[in-house]
């Protein structure tokens, strides 16, 4: 069974919010209607977004790290928001595991948002229905698009390639390999929601340089002062490097 998901690389996310704006742009222009922007130029603007980038500071000054943390629906494999829906408007697609809301069935009771520990759902104050990340279902399943563009808008927009997209149930997919080899983890594992989206941890980048890395201790010139032989040249020995 396919389970489409995002894998977000916290090691390279620079917190530019390109995924936020591209998500908003794509999803506000879609067939489901615009995502509300209440007083966008007023004193207290508010709006519906499917994706946010938050910033956390880890450690104590001066030994701190700034972690930019993109947050959207995690498309849980056991989504607690789905069984609580009284109308069946919230559902998880069998074919690719995307958790969606049927905007025509939603009664706007907000109970599903209570049942999501991650706060991934946002109520649309204009349409009066619950909305959430669709994993750009209208892009990823659109056969009219070139294969390279059948990805969520946020993934295409990310300038540092911090967002990977693929099937986490396929052990050979890029996302599965990234999760496996780079310690990909799920958020709030204590609630057993089994999020499909994973996060790749920050990596320590640094190196230790020893003196012998800069100067070879076994350099033959230091032993007998003789220059190495010139390569034998002639027919069949054009590869001078040997």
């Amino acid at each position, binding site marked *: 069974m396919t389970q489409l998901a995002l894998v977000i690389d916290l090691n390279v996310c620079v917190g530019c919010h390109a995924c936020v704006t591209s998500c908003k742009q794509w999803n506000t222009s879609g067939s489901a209607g615009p995502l509300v922007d209440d007083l966008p130029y007023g004193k207290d603007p508010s709006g519906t977004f499917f994706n946010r980038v*938050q*910033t956390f500071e*880890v450690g104590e000054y001066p030994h701190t790290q700034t972690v930019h943390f993109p947050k959207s629906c995690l498309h849980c494999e056991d989504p607690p928001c789905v069984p609580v829906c*009284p*109308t*069946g408007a919230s559902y998880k697609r069998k074919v690719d595991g995307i958790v969606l809301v049927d905007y025509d069935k939603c009664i706007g*009771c907000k109970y599903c948002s209570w049942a999501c520990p991650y*706060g991934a759902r946002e109520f649309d104050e204009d349409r009066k229905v619950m909305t959430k990340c669709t994993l750009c279902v209208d892009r990823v399943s659109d056969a009219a698009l070139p294969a390279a563009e059948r990805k969520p808008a946020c993934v295409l927009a990310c300038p540092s390639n911090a967002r990977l997209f693929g099937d986490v149930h396929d052990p050979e997919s890029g996302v599965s390999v990234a999760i496996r080899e780079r310690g990909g983890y799920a958020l709030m594992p204590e*609630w057993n929601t089994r999020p499909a989206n994973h996060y790749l941890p920050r990596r320590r980048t640094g190196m230790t340089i020893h003196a012998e890395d800069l100067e070879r201790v076994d350099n033959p010139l230091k032993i007998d002062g003789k220059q190495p032989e010139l390569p034998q040249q002639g027919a069949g020995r054009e590869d001078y490097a040997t």
Partner: protein
Amino acid sequence: MNPAFSVIFLTTLIGAGQGLFLALFGAEVAGYADSAPGARGFLLMGGGVALLLAAGGLVASFFHLGRPERAWRSASMWRTSWLSREVIALPVFMGLLFLWTAGHAAAADWTLPLGVLAALAALALFLCTAMVYASIRFLQEWASTFTLVNYTLLGLASGCTLATALAAWGAPSLVWAYGACALACTLAALVSRSLSLARNARLKPRSTVQTAIGIRHPQIAQRSMGFMGGSFNTREFFHGRTPGALRQVKWAFLLGAFVLPLCLLALGLASASAGLLALAFVVQYLGLLAERWFFLAQANHPQNLYYQAVS
């Protein structure tokens, strides 16, 4: 959580309605209906009041919906959703209550078996209403058996207090029995609600900012939630009151829903004053509004971990 008044009115009104009906039905089981000439008239009047309370709750619930015109859809997922079960149980209870009341109006002889069904529906409705909250496992303040016990006992307490006040007016022979029930239920509710307050005070949140973003470091501070204006996440899940205000509401409901009604009930019973008994119900209902507000506000949603600093 940010308490919604629609939910507060829904749960308190139907709770009182269910409690009142159960009190009335208790009297019928005890053989009250045929004990006196005006007995059925009292049951009829009480049934009407219970029906009004439940209808008031139903109307209040519609104000919670963004799309009330689609409310009929909410009965469809009863296999998985406690909210859907509540949506079914409430009209079923109201329908049976209406038939039971109509039966007394027609002096029919089938009101007792019908009352059994309505009583079962009332109990099922208590279960559904409480499970709507108790079934969300990560709202630790709600996910407890106390939620079930409290909703039932508080509904019974307010229903019995109302029954006492109504009896003082229309069925004097029942006043002492109802008064004793109201005192017992209010006292039991006080004990159970206090125990749940003590439990919630000791709760240790299972989610922390460390598990929320998956970074194991003792010192993590949010520097930006990603936007400076509000959003659904900051409006729906934060009550925006100070801890001091919350404590005041707690003492207000402990006083209003339990202590004052107990005193007023005792005084009203001792002085046989219908006015004091009616006042006991009014005070207790207002106290229950505060209790429900506090119940909703006290729940700490784990999503709040992501919304700790604007920028």
